[in-house]
């Protein structure tokens, strides 16, 4: 079991990168009026067949051959369902996969969003072959981080250069703060 929604995002997005996605869109949307926290992960990876898609919510299904369980998607789904939310996964071979998880924001069983800045930072730094578009929305305010913009400026300077890595972390945390005023979600 994960302890933060952001850890689920990290885990499920790892699947996108392993599916060969060249770009992953991650949206985290918080709406206090609608009492809703929505997470959307869209990739353009290899996608899944109907059979795979049907079994992916089953913890005893995995593409791995070394052991018989795959818990990433079931963990995320359980986290959403136990917090009065919903979970949906759509996929098409050759097109990509979209995962949507909705949580009732005020639900006592909703786990905290957690360190979303650290999560996105880690995804960006350790998957330099993949582009990420991360959008954070809080009560209608929003900011977007797009690694294609970083890449265009940086040229061949890698993301894991200390100065660049620090910049990306600050970019994420400052913009998040400007969007939600540091609210603990």
């Amino acid at each position: 079991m994960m302890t933060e929604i952001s850890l689920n995002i990290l885990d499920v997005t790892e699947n996108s990168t392993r599916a060969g996605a060249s770009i992953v869109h991650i949206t985290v949307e918080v709406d206090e009026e609608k009492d809703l926290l929505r997470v959307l992960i869209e990739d353009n990876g290899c996608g899944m067949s109907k059979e795979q898609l049907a079994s992916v919510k089953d913890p005893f299904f995995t593409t791995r051959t070394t052991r018989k369980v795959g818990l990433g998607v079931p963990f995320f789904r359980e986290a959403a369902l136990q917090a009065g939310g919903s979970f949906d996964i759509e996929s098409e071979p050759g097109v990509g996969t979209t995962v949507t998880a909705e949580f009732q924001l005020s639900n006592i069983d909703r786990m905290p969003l957690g360190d979303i800045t650290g999560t996105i930072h880690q995804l960006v730094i350790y998957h330099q072959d993949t582009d990420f578009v991360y959008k954070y929305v809080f009560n209608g305010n929003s900011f977007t981080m797009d690694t294609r913009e970083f890449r265009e400026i940086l040229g061949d300077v890698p993301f894991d250069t200390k100065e660049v890595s620090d910049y990306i972390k600050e970019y994420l945390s400052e913009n998040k703060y400007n969007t939600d005023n540091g609210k603990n979600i």
Partner: protein
Amino acid sequence: MKSLEELKAIRDKMQGQVGLRAESEASTRVVVGMATCGIASGARPVLTALADAVAEKKIPDCAVTQTGCIGLCQYEPIVEVIQPGKEKVTYIKMTPEKALEIVDKHLIRGQVVSEYTIGNQLK
């Protein structure tokens, strides 16, 4: 608000420097298992602690990377240190604090922290 102008300044500074190298050229590799098992047991802060410490202490020729499931889920978070000509060292049940010890003792001074290795932990 952090601007993209700042990033341009960083790029201009970095491009003038030699020694920017791709990860694959580094001789020491520190690998953290980041599959569901690793993440659920706390691998994210371990990876952050390692990457920050290696950058801050300017350890030369050392790349911190991540991998999928190492196959020993019950011992996660797992950190492997791979150096040319040496046997791979596998540390298990890592925390950010233990990871910093590994940076100081193993990566900087070359002493394996045998207390945390899989061989000793399983005795």
